[in-house]
Structure formats: structure tokens, C-alpha cells
């Protein structure tokens, strides 16, 4: 795996906050204040730590410590005394996967990831605008824990931004397909694709941010992303606190038509006529 790509989450975090964001927790979770519009948003990232005490979580995966630290940082922001509007949260997303390991399972990594998702969703329900900024990989359980509960999802329009439920190799094995057969399907079946443009076609991206250097953001790139973040925060403040807007876009009406139809018919049948 390409080091430049892996470090993207950290690069964008540092660019947005102007600091290293070390917390009194694992070095793999960073949190800091990012000026966005005329406010200071709380920015959180998961980054690689080659010395991580859990060997299976050294490459920027969301492991046990990371899941719980994310939950803690989000809930700390919620607990801060507040004057005026609730503070915005920005999840900088570059997570290759959840950690795969025996200790991880025994010690409940599913719960650690759930705790992070719970914290982000609770922040959203409490009125904090939560924005996910996809700058690298947004994979599977790691994305569910860090970013997928956001009111708004933004993504850099870049080939290194990938969204999926499982790595290609593992997905090929689990579905008993050759890598070639899987590649052919990902090109033909939109939800199976890994690239962010296909993901956006599902109506799941509120803004694809084009024309920025994803690996080495210059000042203009940063300004462009800050402006998009400010737009997303303002939009989230005007919108409902649930995720219903994800099904409202023209893209969703086309490729998530079944998700909409299921809900329409369920509402009809819910109360006995």
C-alpha cells in the first residue's frame, strides 16, 4: 500500500487544524480545532501509528482503542459548555478497515465501533452538525464507526478516495469469484464499485470536491475544502436531525429507488386499515 495515500488523513487533519492533534489517548486518534467559516469546528481523524499497542491496528485501521477514543472525543465535544449554536464536528475519513484479530474479537471490537457510531449519531441528534470529509479510504466497519453517521458526507473527487464493504481480495474470496470476475462486476454494478464517483451516484455524497490535490493540499485546495465544509455545516443546521435527506437526492431516486419504495409501502401497511 502506498504510504503517501495512507498518510492522507493525517495530512488533511494537520492542514485543517494547524496542529498534530495528539490527545490523552492513543496516538492513532487525533482531535483539534479547525477554523471553518466564522466558527471553530472540532476535527477528528484516525491515523496510522506504527507503535500501536495492538499490532493489528498499526496501519490506520479502527481498532479497539480507536473506537473507544473516537466515542470519547465526540462525547467530550458534546459535553463542552456551549454559547450559541452547537459545535460542528468534522470526521476526516481515511480508514482502510476495522482491525482484524483474535484479541480484537475477544475484547469486543464490534462494541468499540458501535460506541463510535453511537457518539457521532448522538451528537447529530443533539444538534451538532456532523460532516464526514472523505480524503482516502472509507471502508466497511471503519467507515460505519467513523463518518457514516454524519448529517453530510463530502468527498474529494480523487481516484484515491475509495468506499466499500470489503477489500477486493477478501471480497473475491468470500463471494467465490476470481479477482478478474470481481473487477468486471464492479465496473458494471454501481453499488459494487470502489471509486468515489460511483459512490456519489448512489446519492450518498452531498458534494464531490473537484480540482484539489488530495495528496498534498496547497493553500487554495485547503480554502476550497474549508468553504465546502462551511456550506455543509450551514446546510446541516437547516435540515432534519435524522438521515432522511440521503434518500432525497435525484441520484438516490434513481439508484436507491428500492430503498424509497420499501419505505413508502411500509408506511402504508404500518397501521391496519
Amino acid at each position, binding site marked *: 500500500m502506498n504510504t503517501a495515500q495512507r498518510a492522507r488523513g493525517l495530512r488533511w487533519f494537520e492542514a485543517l487544524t494547524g496542529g498534530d492533534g495528539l490527545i490523552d489517548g492513543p496516538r492513532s486518534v487525533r482531535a483539534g480545532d479547525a477554523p471553518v467559516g466564522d466558527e471553530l469546528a472540532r476535527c477528528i481523524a484516525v491515523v496510522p501509528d506504527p507503535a500501536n*499497542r495492538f*499490532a*493489528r491496528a498499526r496501519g490506520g485501521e479502527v481498532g479497539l*482503542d480507536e473506537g*473507544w477514543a473516537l*466515542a*470519547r472525543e465526540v*462525547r467530550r465535544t458534546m459535553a463542552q459548555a456551549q454559547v450559541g449554536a452547537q459545535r460542528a464536528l468534522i470526521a476526516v475519513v481515511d480508514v482502510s478497515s*476495522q482491525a*482484524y*484479530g*483474535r484479541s480484537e*474479537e*475477544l*475484547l*469486543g*471490537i*464490534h*462494541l468499540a*465501533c*458501535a*460506541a463510535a*457510531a*453511537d*457518539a457521532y*449519531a*448522538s451528537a447529530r*441528534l443533539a444538534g451538532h452538525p456532523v460532516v464526514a470529509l472523505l480524503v482516502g479510504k472509507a471502508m*466497511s*466497519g471503519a*467507515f*460505519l*464507526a467513523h463518518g*457514516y453517521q454524519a448529517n453530510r458526507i463530502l468527498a474529494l473527487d480523487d481516484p484515491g478516495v475509495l*468506499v*466499500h*464493504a470489503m*477489500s477486493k*481480495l*477478501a*471480497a473475491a474470496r*468470500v*463471494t467465490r469469484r476470481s479477482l478478474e470476475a470481481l473487477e468486471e*462486476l464492479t465496473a458494471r*454494478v454501481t*453499488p*459494487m464499485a470502489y471509486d468515489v464517483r460511483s459512490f456519489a451516484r*448512489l446519492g*450518498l455524497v452531498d458534494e464531490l470536491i473537484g480540482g484539489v490535490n488530495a495528496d498534498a493540499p496547497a493553500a487554495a485546495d485547503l480554502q476550497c475544502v474549508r468553504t465546502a465544509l462551511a456550506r455543509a455545516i450551514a446546510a446541516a443546521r437547516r435540515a432534519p436531525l435524522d*438521515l432522511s435527506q*440521503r434518500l432525497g437526492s435525484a441520484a438516490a431516486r434513481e439508484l*436507491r429507488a*428500492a*430503498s424509497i419504495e*420499501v*419505505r413508502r*409501502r*411500509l*408506511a402504508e401497511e*404500518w397501521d391496519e386499515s
Partner: protein
Amino acid sequence: MSMLTRSSFIELNARERSRAILDAGSFRELLGPFERLKSPWLAPQGIVAQSDDGVVLARGLLDGASAVVAAIESGFQGGSIGEVSGAKIAGVLELALRGCERGRTVRPVLLIESGGVRLQEANLGLAAIAEIHAAIIALRRRVPVVAVIAGPVGCFGGMALAAALCSRIIMTRQARLGMNGPEVIEQEAGLLELDAADARLVWSLMGGEQRCASGLADVLVADDVTEIARQVRAAFAGVGGPRSEQVERFSARLAALDAQRPPAALELRQRWGAERAP
């Protein structure tokens, strides 16, 4: 009628399980198989779709109170979550929330048998699971959300997060609850990390008995229809806060462990099991 002998819950299919959980005669299916709401993504990949997409939804009663059950059928695509099956689960939870907000409380029960995201629908399965999470977290503030994991397929991936978000988790000895399936761990981390074929090892890490004994699930039940139906009802009598909200408690527990020498399964039961939830 009294039941003197055990009647297996695991051997029932999703529809029969839902019927068995609800008060006798109260089962009313929503979006039944005759509505033919199938996955639009499977046929183009040469896979035969199923007319309920592997999820059975039913309204009914629990001790006379309004309830809704969402049951996953492990016999179809390993209980995996695709666009339609995921939207069915998220959709009923969203409607239950709307009901609760209007003062019409509905008791939600999830009967989970799932390997997680259906890889043939990858990103739409993942999106649906995020919406299931969002719905559980919002609904749980109004009414307990109860998860039952009964069969050997178990509960993995994003659906394991969903179970962990619930107010109460009921498991049998046969069931498993984990983030990553053993085969995926072996594939990603190697045979030395985990031998997926070693069933005894796998169940010692993530089986129902271990999860309940180490405080990561709530109630261990026998594979018995009457007992499971009783425990589901008891779960609504009043439960503590969900584990996923107990950040300081679990962070402290984890911080106290040595990652180089993690505790064995039995030791973890002593460390975490004895301590009762607040």
C-alpha cells in the same frame, strides 16, 4: 397450553420465529412475499432473488402491547444485508420511532442471523446498515430495542454493531457475535492469528456463553421457543443504558489490559463478567 418439552427456536425459519415470539394470533406480516419486493441487484449477477429478500417484518403484540419484529432469514444469502432487506429493517425502526413520538409506543425486536453486508450489493448494504444504526440509536431513547441472536450463523459485520447498539442482547450457546467473521480474519491476518476451522476456538472467543459471561451480551438462553419468548418480554420490563453509551467504563477496562498479553477467554470472564452494569 403448557409446554413440557423444549421446542427448538433455531430450527424455525424467520417467519416462524416471528410468529413464535409474538402473542398467539397477533402476527401480521408487512411487505410479505406476495409483494415481490426483491433485490434489484442480484439477477444481473446471475443470482436468484427471493421475494422477501431474506427479511420478515411483522406487527403484533407482546404481552398485549404493540410490537414489531424484524427477522433475518439466514437461509437466504447467509442473512446478508442488501438494499431491500436493509431498507426493510431500517424502515420499520423509523416507523416505530414515529409511532413512539406520537405517543403510540411500539416494542421493537430484532431477530438477527447475519454475516453483515451482502457483498453483491456492497455499498448499498453498508448504507442501509448505517441507516439501521441511526434508527436504533434514535428509537432506543423512547423504548428498549431488543436483539436476539439464536442460530449458528451468528451476527457479524455491521449487524454486530447494530446488536451492540441495542438495549438488550439475548443469545443462545449456539450463536456467535463478532465484528469480523473467522474466515475473514484468517484471510486478512493469517492462520496463526485465527484458525477459522477450529470451531471450539471460534466459539470460545465469540460464542453466546462467552459473550454473556464477559458482559458483552445480557441473557444466555436455551434454544427453546418458550424461554426465548419469555426473555424478550422480560427485556421490556426495564433495562439499563446500552453498552455503546458507557464510554468511560469500557475505556477504563480496556486501558487496564496489557495488549501484549491479552487475557484468555476464561480470564476475561473473571475480569469483566463479575462486574455488574450500573
